[in-house]
């Protein structure tokens, strides 16, 4: 397949390419900067179609403009010949576009089936959509986390996805196209990152008020780093030392109502799913709240003082925590590495 695309790629018109892609530099959600084989296949297919489309557009526009210039009414111009049609020409512009479309259809269909295949030796991750955050579960490691999907580099990942409430749509533009998360069904998406790096992700389908803040990050780690991450995630939460500010924070966590929705493994021993993210290793995530803000004391203070002001419609209530309580809670959460 790559030969087919290579020949097309050589045809790319460099100046247009520069004009087009330099419009927006360093966009973290760029679908035209693939960083893995799936996204790259799609990218190749897009550019093939794109340049054909550009060619047809300029053909039409040129005919249109030339016609306007040379056939424009002038006083001494004779009346035009009354031509009603031309069967040969009309057949020509029926058949040629049809052939062009066949040329597009063949690689399209092939790629559809390629992309849908379950890769061999893929690591399975479950993705659960919630209003408005993504939950990631690693069944083979017994890990549950949120907002940040950690994957090993250079290895196929098979996502099994569903939604806990409304339709969502998981999209990591640099790694693959998007796929819906549907309540009551399982959908699949493959990811593959060539190298280590951080990739932005976002819910694509409108899913309610805070849809635009339903984001995520995908981080690909080297194999050894990934192993270390897994080992750490599998541990229960660290308990703060008695008498510290963090210990006070833990008490607030246990008593203020957080445990109604959140789980911290090893601290509150009710098992099972909760409607809010698992916080066992929350300090290891650099973004929170559906990856809509950074994990730093400043942003976290805003979030804890009034979650709905950050994410309208959120299911996290305003617990009317005092400033001191928030400081202690943030201190505690910071220890959950």
């Amino acid at each position, binding site marked *: 397949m790559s030969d087919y695309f290579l020949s097309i790629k050589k045809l790319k018109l460099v100046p247009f390419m520069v004009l087009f892609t330099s419009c927006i530099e360093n966009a973290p959600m760029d679908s035209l900067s693939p960083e893995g084989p799936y996204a790259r296949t799609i990218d190749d297919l897009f550019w093939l179609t794109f340049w054909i489309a550009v060619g047809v557009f300029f053909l039409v526009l040129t005919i249109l403009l030339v016609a306007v210039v040379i056939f424009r009414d002038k006083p001494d111009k004779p009346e035009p010949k009354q031509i009603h049609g031309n069967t040969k020409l009309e057949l020509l512009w029926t058949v040629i576009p049809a052939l062009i479309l066949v040329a597009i259809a063949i690689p399209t269909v092939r790629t559809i089936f390629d992309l849908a295949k379950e890769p061999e030796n893929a690591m399975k991750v479950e993705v659960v959509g919630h209003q408005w955050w993504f939950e990631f579960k690693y069944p083979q490691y017994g890990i549950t986390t949120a907002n940040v999907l950690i994957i090993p580099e250079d290895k196929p990942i098979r996502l099994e996805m569903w939604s806990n409430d409304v339709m969502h749509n998981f999209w990591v533009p640099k790694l693959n196209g*998007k796929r819906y998360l549907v309540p009551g069904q399982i959908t699949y998406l493959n990811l593959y990152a060539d190298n280590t790096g951080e990739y932005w992700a976002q819910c694509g389908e409108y899913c309610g008020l805070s849809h635009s803040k339903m984001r995520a990050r995908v981080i690909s780690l080297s194999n050894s780093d990934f192993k270390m991450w897994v080992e750490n995630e599998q541990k229960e939460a660290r308990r703060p030392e008695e008498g510290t500010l963090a210990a006070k924070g833990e008490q607030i966590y246990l008593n203020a109502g957080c445990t109604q929705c959140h789980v911290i493994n090893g601290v509150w021993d009710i098992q099972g799913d909760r409607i809010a993210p698992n916080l066992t290793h929350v300090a290891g995530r650099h973004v929170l709240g559906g990856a809509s803000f950074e994990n730093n004391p400043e942003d976290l203070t805003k979030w804890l003082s009034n979650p709905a002001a950050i994410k309208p419609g959120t299911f996290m209530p305003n617990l009317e925590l005092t400033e001191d309580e928030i400081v202690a809670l943030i201190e505690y959460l910071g220890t959950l590495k």
Partner: protein
Amino acid sequence: MSETIQEKKLLTVFKRPSSSEGIWSWITTVDHKRIGIMYGYAAFFFFLIGGLEALLLRIQLARPENNFLSAAEYSAMFTMHGTTMVFLAIMPISAAFFNYLLPLQIGARDVAFPRLNALSYWIWIFGGLFLYSTFIFGTAGAPEGGYLAEEIGWLGNAPSGGWFGYQPNASIKYSPGTAMDYWAVGLQILGISSLISAFNFITTILNMRAKGMRLMRMPVFTWMIFATAFLLAFSVPIIAIALFFVTFDRQFGTTFFLVEGGGDPVLWQHLFWLFGHPEVYILILPAFGIVSEVLPTFSRKPLFGYAAIVFAGFGIAFIGFGVWAHHMFASSISPVAQAGFGISTMIIAVPTGVKIFNWLGTIWGGKLNLKTPMLFALGFIAMFVIGGLSGVTHSVVPADTQQTDTYYIVAHLHYVLFGGAMFGIFAGLYYWFPKVWGKMYNEKLGQLHFWLMIIGFNLTFGPMHWLGLKGQIRRTWVYAEETNLGFWNMISTIGSFIIALSIIVFMANWAYSRRKGPVAPMDPWDARTIEWTVPSPTPVWNFSTPPEVENLDDFWHKKYGEDSEGRAVRKDTADQLLVDLEEDGLNPKEHIKLPNPSYFPFILALGLPLLGYAVIYKSVALAGVGLVLFLIGGFGWALEPIEEETIENSSTASESVGHE
């Protein structure tokens, strides 16, 4: 016959209304021209509201992390913008053209069912007002159990599930309050109006053509009305059923689309797009028709490949029913379905391409008169081609999984529906302005409107192509600074205000020229079709003498012959023909019996929104009042007498036009 009329007179309390001026004459009118004009103004009013909603959206998106609108307000605005533009602006503006022009283009004095035509209008306007009453009565809120930091103001108390109303987000659990019910019930009412129109137009075209007007002599615009009416007749029932399911789910606890009750939310997507994709062609085919009238007239050449354009139109309409799942490539459909719908989507590009090239063939070798309608028609071709070609990139399924739900799609659909449908509509508004008002619009202002609009349009929607490819999702209330999308969003917002400016120029031109413009001759464009054989403005009886048609583009052939080279030569008789036609058109030789006005379409239609409120508020009283109005309307309609209407000085009744 007269005895039946006598009997009917006894049975009804009302006399048929007779005023020909003032507000009652408009409320009771069954004249297709007046109904067309009312459709046009009301639809343009909604177009302005939809445009204001769009401007609010653009202001919110001008900067990253903006807080001009709240999330609730933003969701309400994009939902209402889409719903308004589709159901309350473009469709009814097309209906305005259909109503005004269809009888004129086929040589009839009215549509087949004039009172049904009025009913269709009143149902539509009441449906639109019902939908918009959500801003007064409706309520919206966070999903069940969710929190909001601030109250939702009136601007946010509108449907917020998107014009596509995806389930289960639009269900009562995730979209509580009544706003989404206003949406579902409102669209239901609007759908009734569309169905009535569709059957009325189909019957009119099949039964009321002038002598000699065979199907293949009909103007292309009439053909496209025909195709659109069939699309409506087959697609609206689908959405009607789906909307009933939604209303039942929300109001009466059924679970058609809810997983917890064994329902399937993806089924909604299938049903919605099974209607929604034909709907796209319902919006664009009328513009195809308008452009196919404007281009030949202003090129002084016949349409290149008339038959091919007609068949391509029907081909598009037919295949349009087989491409719906291309809106769902990222949804849960199998690779086989993806491949199938990808290919069917590619196939639909072929007839579309045929149309484009035939239009180019029409202007090629012509004598192009670049008046405003022609500029808009040419702009239509250029802009629509961009929308069509970006559509082809969506048919490439893997690429579409990157593009779907991004601004790339927003760009695509606006190039089709604004650059396509609206440019075509503006071409038509300028083209037929003299026939409707008997005045000429101001050419300079018209051209200014065109240039402002095409610049503003491309500035607004052009950048959205790369905004989408660079990762801006649709329906996004805010976007992060780090996405680096701010600059082009700002450009896009600036562009949207240039469009707004162009609309102001258009309105100024319209308002001024309608009253103070120079008097329009009968045939200002040296046109081809028979609506130009009646005086400007069109007399209430349309044709004094029923026209007889011998050719496609009959009027042109009566004015022009061809020399040995095939060039058009004006016949010596042409000037006298125009004088005679105008003389005849203004002075009918015999009394012309026109359909009587009626109160009942208005009364019947008034019942529907009340029934709608009754469903939302589960009110028996409202249902009762609504039903009474509905029944009064229906029975009164059936029983009202035909009354003599005296126009001019004639005495003997001759033919009746309305088959009432």
